[in-house]
């Protein structure tokens, strides 16, 4: 063996004599995840006919996103959201891509795969708010704790079909308690396999000419067993089930230069099963001891359709109309018409003006003028819109 050069031992390492820190530190930041955040500010003026009127300004949301690879076959992300004066964990999930073929598996808390919009945070949408029918049937944002399998397969060179199936502990949204007379939904803490909550989606994407893409999809969200609870009267109605089904169609077009684009689409939903529950002041009026919880069962429908046109990369305008039947016994209809203009001040800063006219059979009609400023800070990449 050749002797080591004599002078080698005299050269201190960059960390000093003794080989520096070696692997003795636990506080290395070289493998920190990518950190980004979104700030979404909304100011608006609301004018309800014979009702609420005035201005409001709010930091609507702040999303803090951490993301990185776990190992070569898995990546993970966490989204911590500040909304309504509270912090909450919106998402914390691991996606495993090491399965053979085009199968992937994600586990943790993540947004459900339903339709074209529920996978995205509200500030990422083309309108200031999520369409009315999605808010009412599924929730403003719907994340669940569970597992989801994804797979896609080609059908020729320009068409693909994608499938996803998710199972969750609780997708009840918990927001069915809209006033003191209505009961909140809850699912049992421990369930049989047939009592787990499920989502499923199938979508087909194909190309239309050199510049167009056409997509058709079908989605479902299933809650096989849940209870309505009314906290103050301690009433409980168990053994309920609810499903939301949806069909969607979207056409997108982009000019050869990418400067202009046009998107139009429709999503139609059915909300079926046990929809809501309401305390019935039966027996002695005002005496809660003989009240009943009346569960409203049936099918309600709703839809939204939209058209969006973007030009010069920095401008977009569009119109969206959403209508739904109320889950309440009356099934009263409400419609919302949104017209908006979006100005991208840069790729990471967006200004939006929106006008919403609401027509409600069960409440006051209203007009809302809103301004939204959204900043995206940090690492940035566009996902696939299945």
């Amino acid at each position, binding site marked *: 063996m050749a002797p080591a050069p004599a002078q080698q031992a005299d050269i201190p390492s960059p960390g000093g004599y003794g080989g520096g820190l070696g692997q003795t530190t636990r506080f290395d930041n070289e493998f920190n995840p990518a950190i980004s955040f979104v700030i979404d500010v909304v100011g608006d003026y609301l004018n309800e006919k014979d009702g609420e009127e005035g201005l409001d300004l709010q930091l609507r949301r702040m999303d803090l996103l951490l993301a990185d690879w776990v190992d070569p076959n898995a*990546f993970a992300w966490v989204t911590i959201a500040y909304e309504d004066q509270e912090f909450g964990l919106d998402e914390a999930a691991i996606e495993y*891509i090491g399965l053979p*073929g*085009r*199968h*992937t598996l994600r586990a943790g808390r993540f947004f459900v795969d339903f339709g074209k919009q529920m996978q995205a945070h509200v500030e990422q949408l083309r309108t200031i708010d999520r369409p009315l029918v999605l808010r009412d049937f599924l929730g403003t944002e719907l994340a669940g704790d569970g597992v989801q399998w994804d797979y*896609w397969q*080609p059908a020729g*060179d*320009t*068409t*693909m079909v994608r499938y996803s199936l998710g199972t969750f502990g609780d997708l009840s949204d918990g927001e069915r308690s809209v006033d003191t007379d209505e009961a909140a939904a809850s699912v049992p803490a421990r369930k049989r396999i047939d009592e787990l909550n499920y989502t499923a989606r199938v979508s087909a*994407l*194909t*190309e239309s000419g*050199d*510049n167009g*893409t056409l997509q058709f999809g079908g989605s479902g969200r299933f809650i096989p067993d849940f209870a309505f609870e009314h906290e103050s009267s301690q009433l409980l109605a168990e053994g309920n089930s609810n499903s939301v089904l949806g069909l969607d169609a979207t056409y*997108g077009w*982009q000019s*050869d*230069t*990418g*400067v202009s*684009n046009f998107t139009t689409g429709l999503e139609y939903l059915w909300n079926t099963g046990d929809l809501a529950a309401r305390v019935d002041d039966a027996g002695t009026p005002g005496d809660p001891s003989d009240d009943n919880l009346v569960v409203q069962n049936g099918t309600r429908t709703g839809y939204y359709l939209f058209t969006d046109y973007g030009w*010069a*990369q*920095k401008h977009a305008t569009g119109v969206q109309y959403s209508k739904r039947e109320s889950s309440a016994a009356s099934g009263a209809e409400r419609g919302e018409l949104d017209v908006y203009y979006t100005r991208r*001040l*840069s*790729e*990471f800063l967006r200004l939006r003006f929106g006008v919403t006219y609401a027509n409600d059979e069960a409440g006051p009609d209203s007009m809302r003028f809103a301004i939204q400023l959204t900043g995206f*800070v940090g690492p*940035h*990449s*566009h*996902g*696939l819109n299945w």
Partner: protein
Amino acid sequence: MQHTHTRRLALLAFALVAPLSAFAFPTVKPINVVATIPDVADFAQRIGGDRVRLKTLSKGTENLHSVHVRPSMLIALSRADLFLEMGLSLEAAWLPELLVRSGNDDIQPGAGGFQNCSEGWNAIDVPETLSRKQGHLHPEGNPHFNLDPHAGRHLATVIHAALVRVDPAGEKLYDTNLKATLDELTKAETRWTELGKHWKDKRICVYHPEFAYFARRYGMNVAVSIEPKPGIPPTPSDIARVIKEMRKQEVTVILTAAWSNNRQVADIARKTGATVLELPNQTLGADWAKNWIAFQDGLHARVAAALGTPTAAEKAK
């Protein structure tokens, strides 16, 4: 009768010989190559010849930040044996998710079928600090190196090595094609140098720093940039600054791409008397840019005409 007999013999002979021809002329199944932009695809086709089946993800006409992701892209990636990207984050806005979702382990970064074509390229404009205050920065430097007249040589060499790696059986063909390509590039570079030697210190205005490599190659002076920072649209005060600076420095040419040739550029040109030269920044970005060499020929001819320096035709005389 004799005629029928002869025909039968011929058919029999064909039936016997036809299967043997497969051994004499073995059919080579082409390897599937996916390239992000037509510039890269052009060299993959030149080097790979008939041994490659090529799919290009972008058209060459679009802004690479606004590439519309389509099903055929994902399908092609899922079947690819070799994937070629420009790198330097040029495709960062749309590519990472496509690669992950392709489900093709062979073309993931680090695998044998993945090739970042910026590997070994000496990038310019590498930011010293990374902050969005400096605009839409590319951390590894200016990614538009396909516009450098010497980039063809680099791309051809890198792609040749990648093809040999994934398809060693084709090495002989790839070597031959590389040599032919480099010979063609040598002639072209001589042509371009002849035109470009008149451009030293010529002052130009650009909308976006996509022509930085092209300008640097000939010592041109990018005196004014309409975007205050890369990717940041100019405000009215920026426009005023640009007009003032162009007048002061007597800049007479604005280089711009189709997606940035907007009303602001027209306004600046009107107020300064400058010529707006709208140029593609990729192969296939215009009718005349049918391949990378033709693309560079066209760029050189148009820049020479706009600057009022000798053109290739004048040189030929």
